[in-house]
């Protein structure tokens, strides 16, 4: 077996040092009834690299990848071009095959990257500080709800109807066990967001208001009135950003008064990957840093006085605090944070601004073209690179039929909100720099045929 270097001769020599007759004898503590006498029946034996590659390639070919078709899906996962150097650099073994930087003297590479990542994320989100990443946007979102509970000592969270429904589901799952009360309903097909309704719902029991920006229908609105209303009532504003590229064009939630800003960082560097691994972003105001979940990297000096970096404030964490920890999180999403950070460094302020401007312009053009298709109506007044179309028939069927024609034409609201029949004609369409004018034309024509 090509990955296992111990030879039979080694084995005999080592067993004699140990004083055992065979490898099986080393399992003497396992009760005899639980020991399998040989290889597990019904499973194949080892295979060559070529054979495994063939098998996996065959399965890969059974999928229609985004790059092979006109592609317009978003709703929490966005396809952006990732520069070749990003993937090259994250495959350096010193990054790829390192562990959590528990021994900082020989992990300065990872630690400096995390310090740079935290700074980039904090600035992008408009926060004072950010952590070294979470599993994904949805888990970062419920960690934020838990953090708001700890800070305010209140247990009712108001979730905007524009929050990604899967994020809502994750929060609901957790709330069943933590006892938080969550207030939420499905969105309406309305050009305006639900900010006014949220403002009216805040009361003295509210721990936080959770609002997505841009929201699940692609709508954007100033969060300042919501932040003010929350703060007046002693509650926090949690903002959720599922498309961080947007913050190269539109105001940062932290600058509009959000206390905690979480997000999905997959857009930069990570890729679609059928949903994971992704990258949870988590930023907040400085005053709440000790209530923050997850790993944090901080600056310090070494015994010789040189600047260096370490994991810090670990007294919040499970390996020190055990049952009193702020979160049970251990592993984060280190390599995805690295990919995000490299992509962001390549872009810089200039590149991110250009990327965001290009996304918005292409989305505006596509929205106008698609709105000309008979039976299609554009919902949004304001949007970044994603908008909602209202079709003349159920969008779920339309999406399936378009797929049969080789067009990946957005995400239907029926799939996202299976219980909300009144919005079933909604179709969420994302347009990034990877979409060409031909793609838009193909999509528009296919949609026209489908709605005829």
């Amino acid at each position, binding site marked *: 077996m090509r990955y296992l270097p111990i030879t039979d001769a080694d084995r005999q020599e080592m067993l004699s040092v140990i004083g055992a007759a065979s490898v099986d004898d080393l399992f003497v503590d396992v009760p005899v009834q639980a020991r399998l006498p040989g290889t*597990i029946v019904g*499973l194949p*034996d080892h295979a060559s690299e070529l054979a495994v*590659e063939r098998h*996996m390639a065959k399965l890969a070919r059974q999928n229609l990848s985004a790059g092979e078709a006109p592609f317009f899906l978003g709703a*929490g996962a966005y396809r952006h071009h990732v520069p070749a150097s990003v993937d090259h650099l994250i495959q350096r073994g010193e990054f790829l095959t390192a562990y959590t930087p528990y021994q900082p003297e020989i992990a300065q*590479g990872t630690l400096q990257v995390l310090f740079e990542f935290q700074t980039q994320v904090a600035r992008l989100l408009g926060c004072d500080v950010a952590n070294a990443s979470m599993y994904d946007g949805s888990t970062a979102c419920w960690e934020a709800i838990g953090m708001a509970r700890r800070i305010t000592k209140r247990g009712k969270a108001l979730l905007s109807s524009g929050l990604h429904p899967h994020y809502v589901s994750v929060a609901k*799952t957790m709330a069943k066990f933590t006892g938080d009360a969550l207030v939420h309903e499905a969105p309406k097909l309305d050009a305006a967001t639900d900010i006014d309704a949220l403002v009216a719902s805040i009361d003295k029991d509210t721990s936080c208001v959770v609002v997505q920006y841009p929201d699940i229908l692609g709508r954007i609105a100033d969060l300042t009135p919501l932040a003010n209303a929350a703060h007046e009532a002693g509650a926090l504003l949690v903002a959720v950003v599922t498309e961080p590229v947007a913050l190269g064009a*539109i105001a940062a939630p932290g600058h509009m008064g959000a206390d905690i800003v979480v997000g999905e960082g997959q857009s930069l560097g990570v890729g679609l990957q059928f949903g994971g691994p992704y990258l949870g972003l988590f930023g907040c105001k400085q005053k709440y840093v000790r209530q923050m979940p997850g790993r944090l990297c901080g600056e310090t000096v070494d015994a010789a006085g040189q600047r260096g970096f370490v994991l810090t404030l670990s007294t919040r964490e499970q390996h020190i605090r055990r049952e009193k920890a702020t979160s049970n999180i251990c592993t984060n999403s280190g390599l995805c944070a690295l990919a995000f950070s490299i992509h962001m460094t390549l872009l810089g302020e200039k590149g991110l601004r250009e990327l965001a401007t290009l996304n918005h312009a292409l989305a505006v053009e596509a929205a106008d073209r698609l709105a000309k298709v008979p039976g299609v109506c554009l919902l949004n007044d304001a949007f970044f690179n994603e908008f909602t179309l209202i079709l003349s028939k159920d969008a779920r069927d339309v999406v399936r039929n378009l797929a049969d024609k080789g067009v990946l034409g957005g995400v239907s609201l029926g799939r996202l909100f299976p219980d909300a029949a009144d919005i079933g004609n909604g179709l969420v369409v994302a347009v990034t720099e990877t979409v060409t004018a031909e793609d838009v034309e193909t999509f528009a024509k296919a949609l026209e045929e489908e709605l005829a």
Partner: protein
Amino acid sequence: MTMLKEGRPTAPQAVAEEHVAPATATGNRALMLEEPLIFEIGSADTTGVDFAEVPKVKSRLGNLARKEAIGLPGLSEQETVRHYTRLSRQNYAIDLGLFPLGSCTMKHNPRLNEKVARMPGFADLHPLAPQSTVQGALAVIHELAQWLVTLTGMHSVAMSPKAGAHGELCGLLAIRAALEARGDARSVVLVPESAHGTNPATAAFCGYKVEDIPATPDGRVDLEALKSRLGPDVAAVMITNPNTCGLFERDMKTISDAVHAAGAFVYCDGANFNAIVGRVRPGDLGVDAMHINLHKTFSTPHGGGGPGSGPVVLSQALAPFAPLPFVEKQGDRFVLVEEESVEDHHGGSFGRMVAFHGQMGMFTRALAYILSHGADGLRQVSGDAVLNANYILRSLSDVLDAPFGGSGPCMHEALFSDKGLAEGFTTLDIAKGLIDEGFHPMTMYFPLVVHGAMLVEPTETESKAALDQFIMALRSLAERAKAGDEALKGAPYHAPRRRLDETLAARKPVLVWTEPELAEAAE
């Protein structure tokens, strides 16, 4: 003009002792290059990415345009490549040498798995793409699930948890849902003293009161103490097997039977599954739920701290409560069951844990790893992992105290204590000494039940030659620490940094970079 005939010196010349390592003007040391922060070398006008021309359109950003500078420096492509390449060289990694971090299973990461995960048919798929277009991806999830279920002898598996601790959460939520479904509210979870910190943290997060179970002097769960604590208020027992002392819990089946008789469930922390994969099925030991760290046993890369992946295998009793979404085979098609309004046999699901379906990028790697090894290779994995650990245990037990060395073979990790080191010398000194010797230190000060614990997990992918070199290095350090060699207290001397001040970092946290002039103004 005359040609110079002297040539260049071709043999090194002797220099005085004080000149052996003079400081350099740059702070660099040949191949070891100091690297500033991107904020110190980049600029807002530099970029390493070019874009197509932007079409002229009227903005529809609704007066929300971000006007002020964001503060993100850019680098050109070459500067970027150099920045991260230089930083990478300040990291230790499996690719550089033995990484015996106990309980973390730092085994070789085969590169075939990286290649497979990057096939566009997997990497460039949207999680919400129509199911007819992702049949191959669903097939991967299903095939891996079949392997995990068969290898563990369990009923089914929840694939979506994102890491080990997230898997623990999944298991406990399933247990809580199962108890609630039978109208049996219970409030306590029992956790052995030697458990990973994530176990009590997870149980507390799920709303349970956590109580410790003591260990016996031979490093195992105290069966009698456990049995006497069981009662109608106990929801579950969380046990790590093999445990964090590197020992197999001999009484596991008896424990499970007692827990079940008391109406509770057995959660097994599967962090150490590598020791028994292909030889022992947790299902045969009465386990109800166990997470499998794909980044440990099945070799998906640790990536400097994630991403991990923690599928949870479940017993028949817990299977109905598994989280959404999951993959089902219906005839010759694969279906992703993702809706919460499912009313048929999935009505008991405790809900969704993540936005999408889990760590697909880890599933492809883990499946490639498993197919490469096959049933015979996986059996050899656990055999060699245990062999290597015992070889280290027996090769060093004359110089290091092995608290449980007398109770028979260890499993895949060898545990030593700091007993016998000279006054004032600690496990930390030995760990930092190992850095100078070119190794990553072992896990230190864990498990908490052993004083100055050193937990060494070599894994099966290390050759005997690599183990012998490690043993030689650790022997030398143990001897130095016993002899009171003061120089050891300053180690490491040859790493990119000397020992770092963690107290300072925590007292005055600096978590983001601030421009020096702003930092000064804020003082």
